C-alpha cells in the first residue's frame, strides 16, 4: 500500500472524528457505550462471579427475593443470586453476542455485496434474487426456527443472527460498490491490466469500508435485541447469563407478580442503553458518510 493512500486514509479518519466530535448525539452514544464496554471488561472487579452460582449464594447467606435496600446494590433473585452480579456479567454475554453476530452479518453481507456488485451479470442477478428472498422471510421466525433446530448455545445464537440478518447489508454494499465502480479510477486501473482482486483490495474495499462500518454500528442493536428476544423465548444458552436470560428467568419465576422490579428492570435498561448508544453512533456516522441521508435506522 502506498504511503499516499495511507495518508489519505488517515486524513479521512481524522476528518470523520472531527465531525463526529461535534455531534452531541454521537458523543452521548459513544460515552454510554464506552461505559458499558468498560463494565463488561471490568466485570471480575465489579462483581464476584460466584454470586451467579445459587449454591454459593445460599452458602454465603444471601436473602431470597431481597429488594435493593436489603441487599445493595440491586437485590437478589428467587434463588438468592445477586442481581448486580447478573447485570455486570450479563453485559459481557450480551455485548459479545451482539458484536460477534454483527461481525458475521457484516462479513456475509459485505462479501455478497462486493462480489455481486463487482462481478455483475448473472452472478449479480442470482445473488440479488437470493438476497431478496432472505429479505422477505420474516427475520424473527426464521431465527427462532433455526435456533430450535440447532439447539441452545451462544455460538448457535451468533450463527443464527448472522445468517438471518445479512441481506440488507448486502444490498447497501452492492449499491455502493456499483457507484465506486462507475468512477473513473477503477476503469483506469483496469485498463492498466490490474487483476480483479487487486481492484477490490486497492480501490473498492477502501471506498466501501466507511459505509460498512456505519452499517455495522446500526446492525449491533438488531443483533442485541434479537439475542434478547431469543433468550427470553428460551432459546438462549442456558449456562450463559445474558441480559435476555435474566429477563426470561424473572418472567418465569414470577418476579412480575411479586413486583420484584429490581430483578427485571436493570437488564432491560442495560439493553435499552446499549441499543440506544449504538443507534446514536450509527446515525451520526451515517450522517457524516452521507449528509443528505436523514433516515430511520
Amino acid at each position, binding site marked *: 500500500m502506498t504511503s499516499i493512500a495511507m495518508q489519505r486514509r488517515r486524513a479521512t479518519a481524522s476528518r470523520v472524528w472531527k465531525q463526529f466530535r461535534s455531534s452531541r448525539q454521537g458523543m452521548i452514544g459513544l460515552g454510554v457505550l464506552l461505559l458499558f464496554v468498560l463494565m463488561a471488561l471490568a466485570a471480575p472487579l465489579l462483581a464476584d462471579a460466584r454470586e451467579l452460582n445459587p449454591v454459593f449464594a*445460599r452458602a454465603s447467606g444471601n436473602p431470597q427475593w431481597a429488594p435493593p435496600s436489603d441487599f445493595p446494590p440491586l437485590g437478589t433473585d428467587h434463588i438468592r443470586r445477586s442481581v448486580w452480579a447478573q447485570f455486570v456479567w450479563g453485559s459481557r454475554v450480551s455485548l459479545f453476542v451482539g458484536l460477534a453476530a454483527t461481525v458475521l452479518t457484516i462479513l456475509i453481507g459485505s462479501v455478497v455485496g462486493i462480489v455481486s456488485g463487482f462481478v455483475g451479470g448473472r452472478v449479480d442477478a442470482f445473488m440479488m434474487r437470493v438476497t431478496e428472498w432472505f429479505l422477505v422471510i420474516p427475520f424473527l421466525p426464521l431465527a427462532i426456527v433455526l435456533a430450535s433446530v440447532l439447539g441452545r448455545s451462544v455460538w448457535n445464537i451468533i450463527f443464527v443472527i448472522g445468517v438471518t440478518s445479512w441481506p440488507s447489508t448486502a444490498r447497501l454494499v452492492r449499491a455502493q460498490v456499483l457507484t465506486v465502480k462507475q468512477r473513473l479510477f477503477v476503469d483506469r486501473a483496469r485498463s492498466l491490466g490490474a487483476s480483479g482482486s487487486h481492484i477490490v483490495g486497492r480501490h473498492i474495499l477502501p471506498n466501501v469500508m466507511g459505509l460498512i462500518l456505519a452499517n455495522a454500528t446500526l446492525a449491533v442493536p438488531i443483533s442485541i435485541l434479537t439475542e434478547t428476544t431469543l433468550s427470553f423465548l428460551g432459546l438462549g444458552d442456558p449456562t450463559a447469563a445474558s441480559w435476555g436470560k435474566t429477563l426470561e428467568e424473572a418472567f418465569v419465576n414470577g418476579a412480575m407478580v411479586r413486583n420484584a422490579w429490581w430483578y427485571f428492570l436493570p437488564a432491560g435498561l442495560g439493553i435499552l442503553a446499549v441499543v440506544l448508544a449504538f443507534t446514536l453512533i450509527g446515525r451520526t456516522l451515517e450522517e457524516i458518510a452521507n449528509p443528505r441521508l436523514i433516515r430511520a435506522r
Partner: protein
Amino acid sequence: MGIHSLWSKLNGESILMRRLVVLMTVALAAALLAPIASAQEDGDLVTLRVGLTQDWDTLNPTAGFSVPSYEVWNLHYATLTDKAPDDFAPVPGLAESWETSDDGLTVTYTLREGLLWSDGEPLTADDVAWNINTARDQGWDNMISTVQNIEATVVDARTVQLVSSVPDPKLPTMDVYLVPRHIWEPIATDYDAATQYEGADADGVGSGPFVVSEFTQGQSVVMTANPNYWGWEGEEPPYDQIIFRLFDNPDAMVAAIQQGEVDAAHGFPASSWDALDAEENIEVLEGHQGGFDEIAINGGAAEGQPHPALLDVNVRAAIAHGIDRAAVIEDLWFGHAEPLETLSPSALRKWIPEISSDSQFSYDPDLANQMLDEGGYMDSDGDGVREMPDGSSPILIRHAVNTDGDLAGSIGDLMVGWMGEIGIGVTLESYDQDALFQVIIDGTYDTFYWGWVPFVDPDPMLSYFTAAEIGNFNDANWSDPRYDELYAEQNQELDPDRRVEIVHEMLTLFHDAAVYIPMYLGPDLQAYRTDTFEGWVKQPADIGPIMFSNSSPSYALVTPIGEGAGEGSVNWLLWGGIAAGVIIIVGAFLAMRSRSTEDERE
C-alpha cells in the same frame, strides 16, 4: 390534522388524500371488528370453575397419561368400585355389592339397578365384561397392569364375574375406566384406532357425574352434569357444569382466584402461598397424595449410554450427596414440601420404608468429594472438572431440563452449582415433557429432573423399575434381577403385612442403587374460594388434596352457596379500561385540533 377535518377540507380536491383516508378507515374498522375467538356459554348455568396449569394430553382413557386427563376421566367414567375419600378402600360404585371366593381368585359383582350411560343407553354387565376382556386382549397401556390376569364373564344383565389366574392383592378394587361399548366396539379391536381415538371428547358419552361437552386443548374442558349418574339417586344434580380452565402463567391463575374468576385452583406456585393464605375468602392447602420429584441418573440400560463414570454406583451416590435437597424445599417450596429418601409408590405413606440414617444421601459435598477421590476420579488437568481414573473423558454430564416443569429451570441452575462443588461439569439441555420422554427412552441424557404422582396400589409404580419396562416407563434405565423377583412376589402376595415388607425391601434396594434421587414429597398446592362452593373433601383424609386426587370425589359432593356461585365477575375496571381507551383516542383528536388552530394563528 384529525382525519375528519382533513376529509371535509379536502372534499373533492385530492383523489390521493381521499383514497388514503378511505384506506385508513377501512383498515381501522377491519382491525377493530376482527373476530376474536368467542366461547359460547349459557349465562344462566351454575358453574364450578377450576384453574390448573398443566395441559391435557388426550381425553382417551386408554392412552393418555397427564394428571389433568385423569381428572376428566374420574368424572366422565364411573368405575365398578369407587374409592372411599378417606382411605381409598373399595366402596360401591357401579357395583352395589360384591362377593369374593374363599381362594380370593374370583369376585362376583352385582350392578345397581337401572344404570344408564349419559346418552340413555343401558349400562349392563355386558359393558363391564367387554371392557375388561378387551383392555386385556388389546393391551391398552392404562389398563393392562390391572386386568392382565383377569377373565370377566357375564352371569346376567346385572352380574359380572371376574376370575384372576393368579392371586391378586388389588381385588376386589376394580377401577379401570369403563368406556361405552356401543360406541367403542367398531374401533376397539384395532389397537391404533382405539388409542388414537379422541375418547371422551369425541363422543361425550360417559357414566360418571359430569361428562365432557367441550374440549379445547391448551385452554379448557367443559363438563356438564350427567342426569343419568347413579350417585344423584334420581335428584337434580347440585349444579350444572364444571369448567376446567388452563392458565399458561401460574401467576395469572393466582390473580384469577383472588379476583373470583375461578372457584378453585390446582397447582399454584409455592411462592404465592402467603398471598393466597392472607385472602379472607380463600382457603389454601397442601394436598399430599404421594407425589414426589426426583433427579434421575441414567442407569445405562437404554441404547444411549450415560457418561461412563455414572455406571459406578459410588459416583452416583457421590452425586446424590452433592445435591442439597433441603435448599430446594426451603427456597423453591417455601417449606411446603417434605423430605423423602426413596421413591413413594402410593398415595398412602405406609409403603415408604425407613432408610437407615447412615445410608441416607445427606447433603455433604465434602463426603462426595472424598468418595470421588477414593474412586480415582481426579481432576488431573486442573480445570476444575474431574476425569475418569485413567485420565480420559472429563466428567461432564448432560442434565435435561423439562420445560413444562415450573421449577425445572431453577433446579437446572442449582444442579450446575451443586455439581461444580464436587468437580463435575454440567451442560443443560431443554426438552418439553414429550421430548424428554423420548430422550429417556433413547438414553441420550445423564440426569434429569421430573416427578411422579403414584396410584393407590403400589404395584404400577413398582412395576416401572422392572426390566420389562425398560424402553417404556422405566425412566431410571436401570434394572436388577433381585428387584424383579421381589416385584413378582408382592404382585401375588395376599397377606397385606407381608406385602408391605416385600415392598420395603424393594425400595431400600432401589434407594441404594442411587439411580433415583427423590428430592421431596411435593404436595399439590390448592386453593378454593369459601364464598362460592362448599363441601370439599380431602382424599386421603387430612393430608390429601381436594381435587386432582385418585378418584376426585369432591366434584359430586360440593354444592353452590347462594347466588355468588358461578358468576364470572367482569368488574367495573372493564369500563374503566374502555373509558381510558376512549379518552386516549379523543385526546389525540383534540390535540390535533388544537394544533390546527395553533397553525391558523400563525
